[in-house]
C-alpha cells in the first residue's frame, strides 16, 4: 500500500465517519481531517509524479480548506447557535452504513472507468474519489441544516479534487488555485447567507425553505 492509497482511504473513512454524527462541530472536525488527508495525498502524489507545484497546492488546501473553512464554519455555527443536525429521510447511523455500502460500490465503478483515467496505482484513489462524491451527495441529501449542506458540498468538492489528483497527470496549476479560490469565496458567501437565513427565518433548516413552489 502506497502512502497515496493509505491517505486516500483515510479520507474516505473520515468522510464516512462524518456521515455518522449529527454534531456540526464534529462534522467539521472530521471534514478537516479528511481534507488534511487529501492534502497529504497530494504531496505523496507530487513526489511520485515529480510535480513540485503540487506542494503549493497542498499547502494552499491545508490553509484554506482544512483550516480556514472549518474554522469559519464553526465560528458561524457558534454565532447562530446551531449545534446539531437531526437529519431527514433516514436516521443518521444508517446514513453512515449507506456511505459504507457506497464505498463498496465505488470500487467496481472506479474499475469500470476508462483505463486512461487511472495511473498505475490509482484504482484506490479513484474509488475513494467516487466514494467521496457519493458521501458528499448523501450528506447533502440527508441533512436539513444549511451548514451541513455546505459541508456536504465541500466533501463533494474534495472528491472532485481527488479525481483530479489521482486520475490525471497534473491539472494546470492556475486552474487548481482558481478553483480553490472559488470554493473559498463560495463558502464565504454561503456563510453570509446562512447568517441571513438565521436572521430572517430564525432557523437554518432548509427543509422549511419551501415558500417558492408551483401552486
Amino acid at each position, binding site marked *: 500500500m502506497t502512502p497515496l492509497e493509505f491517505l486516500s482511504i483515510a479520507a474516505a473513512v473520515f468522510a464516512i465517519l462524518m456521515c455518522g454524527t449529527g454534531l456540526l462541530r464534529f462534522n467539521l472536525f472530521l471534514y478537516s481531517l479528511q481534507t488534511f488527508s487529501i492534502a497529504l495525498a497530494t504531496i505523496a502524489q507530487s513526489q511520485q509524479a515529480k510535480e513540485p507545484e503540487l506542494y503549493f497546492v497542498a499547502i494552499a488546501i491545508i490553509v484554506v480548506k482544512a483550516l480556514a473553512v472549518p474554522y469559519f464554519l464553526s465560528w458561524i455555527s457558534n454565532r447562530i447557535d446551531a449545534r446539531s443536525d437531526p437529519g*431527514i*429521510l433516514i436516521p443518521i447511523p444508517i446514513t453512515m452504513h449507506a456511505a459504507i455500502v457506497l464505498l463498496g460500490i465505488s470500487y467496481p465503478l472506479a474499475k469500470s472507468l476508462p483505463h486512461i483515467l487511472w495511473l498505475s496505482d490509482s484504482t484506490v484513489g479513484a474509488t475513494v474519489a467516487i466514494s467521496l462524491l457519493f458521501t458528499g*451527495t448523501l450528506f*447533502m*441529501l440527508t441533512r436539513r441544516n444549511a451548514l451541513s*449542506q455546505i459541508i456536504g458540498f465541500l466533501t463533494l468538492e474534495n472528491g472532485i479534487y481527488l479525481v483530479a489528483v489521482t486520475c490525471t497527470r497534473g491539472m494546470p496549476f492556475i486552474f487548481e488555485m482558481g478553483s480553490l479560490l472559488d470554493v473559498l469565496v463560495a463558502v464565504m458567501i454561503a456563510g453570509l447567507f446562512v447568517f441571513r437565513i438565521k436572521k430572517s427565518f430564525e432557523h437554518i433548516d*432548509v*427543509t422549511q*425553505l*419551501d*415558500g*417558492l*413552489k*408551483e*401552486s
Partner: protein
Amino acid sequence: MHFSAPYPIYFGVAPLSLFLDPLAAIFVLLLLTVTMASAIFAPSYLRHLTGKINQSYFWINMILFIVGMLMVLLSANAVTFLVFWEIMSLSSAALVASDFSSHKAHKATIIYLGATRIATSLLAIGFLWYYSIFSSWNFVDWKLNSESLPAAILVALGLCIKAGIWPFHIWLPYAHPQAPAPVSALMSGVMIKVAIYAAIRLFVLPGSGSEELAYLFIALGMISALWGIVFALIQTDLKRLLAYSSVENIGLILASVGICLWAQKTGMKEIALISFVAALFHSINHGIFKSLLFLSTGAIDSAMHSREMKNLGGLSKKMPWTSFAFLVGAASACALPPLSGFASKWLIYQGFFTIPCQWHGKAMIGISLVSIGLLAFLGGLALACFTKAFAISFLGRPRSAAINHAKEASPSMLIAQLSLTLITVLMGLLSPQIISFFSLVYQSILVPEEAAISGFAKFVGPSLPLLPLAIVLTLLTCIIYYSVLFRKRKQLKLSMTWECGYGGLEPTMQATAGSFSHSIATIFAPILHYSTRFQISGKDRRHFPEQIQVETEISSLLESSIYSPIINSVRLLSGHFSKLQAGSIHLYLLYVFITLIALLTLGAKS
C-alpha cells in the same frame, strides 16, 4: 406575376416573395370588396361603441388584419405565407378582444388564439415536412403524391381549423360574434376563405388529386355543414347564428374541393371543373352575402345595442333599408334563385350529381347520393334558420321598448350594406358569365382537356337562366300585385292580430327564436344536448297558471365530451407536473443526481 423582395428583407430561410395568379386575384377581389364595405361601414358603426373600443387600437389592428390577409393570398412561398398567416390570425384575435372590459370577449379571444395557434402548428409541421421532401419553400414546387400525403393531411387539418370545419369549428361561434361587425364580416366573409384558398392552391393546383384527402374533405365538409346549420338554427343571438351558418357554408365549399380532388385523381375532368368552380364561386358568394348579413346585424346592434333576438322584433318599420339588405342576404344564404347563393349551390349539387351519372361502382356514388340528400336537408334547415333570423328580428311586434327609439342606420352604413346587396343580386343574375369566367381560371392554371370546358360552358348556360327568370318573376309579381291587391289598398282595414278573443296579445306572446326552432331542435336533441324546462306556478297550476316559464338549454356535444376532457387532462397533467417543483431543495438536488445517473447509464449503454 411574381415579386421577390430585395435582399435585406428575408425571413430566415426564404425571401419575402409574392405572386399573383388568377386564382389569387379572385380572392383578392373578394377581400377588397368586403374591405371596402367594412371600411365604409366601420366609422359610424364604431360610434355606438365609443368608450368601449379604442379607435386607434381598432384601426391599427384592422389594417394589420387586412394586410395580413392580402399578403397570405399573395404569398408565393410557405414562410411568407406563415408569417402573414400569423399576423392575420393575431390581429384578428386582437380585434375580437377590442372590447377590453367584456369577459365574453376575453374568453372568445383566448379560445380563438388557442385554435389558431394549433392550426399554425399543424401547418408548420406540414410545411416543414413538405420542405424535407421537395427541398423548396415555393408552393409551385410542392406536389401532391403518396410521399407528401402525410404532410398534406397535416396542412389540411391546420387549414380546417382555420376554416372552422367540424370538429375544429369550436372557436368560430365564439370569436365571430364577439368581434365588431365589420371585423366579423371580414373574418367570416374572407378570413375563413383564405384557408380554402390555401387548400385549393396546395392540393388542387398540383393537379394530381388525392383520394384520401378527398374523402377527408368530403366527410368533414358534409358533417360540418350539417352540424353548423343545426347549431345555427337554434341560436338566439343573431351573430352566433350567422357564425354557425358560416360553418355550414365553409363545409359545403370544402366538400366541393374534396370532390374536385377526387375527380382529379380519377381523371373525371368535367367533374373536377364543376366542383372547382363550385368551390370558388361559393367562396366568393358566401363571402359577399355573409359580410352583408354581418354588417346588417351590426347596424341592428348599433341601433339597439343588442343582437339577442329576444330583444328585437318589428325592426323593418324602423330600419326598412337594413331589413331589405338583410332579407336579400338571408335569401341568398338560403340559395333562393335568382340570387348568387343559388348559383353556387346549384354547382355544388351538379358536382355531386354528375358523379353517379358518369361513374360506375365504387363508394363515391353512395357518398354523392347521400350528399345530395343531405344537401337538400341542409337547404331545408337553412331555410328554417334564415326565415327565423329575418322574421324574428325584423318582423312581428317589438319585443323590447328600445325598438321604439331605434333609427335607420346612417347613410354610410346603408351604402355599405346596399352595395353588397347589389353585388349579391348581380352575381346571381350574371352567374353563367361568372361561372364561365371561373372555368377559364381553372383552365388557365391547369389546362384540362378542351372538351371538358366547352361541354361545361354549354351545360351551364341554358340551365341557369336566372336573369330572364328574375325579369319574368318581377314583372309577374308587379302585375299580380297591382291587379289584385294594389287596387284594393283603399279598402284595407287595419286591426289587431287575431288573439282568439282573449284580448290583449302581448308582444311576449309572439314566437321566439327558441320556440320557432323547437320542433327541429327536438329532432337533433342528442347532439345538441337540447333540453327544455317548464316551470308553471300558481295555485291551480294546470288550468289557471299565473306564470309559466320555459327555458331551453343547449350545449355542444363536442365541447362537453371532447374538448373539455382534453383541456382538463392537459391541466391535470400540468398540475401533476408542477408537483415536481415542490420547493424542497433536497428534491431539487435529487433531480440533479438522478439526471446524472440517467445520463451516465445512457452514455454507458451507447
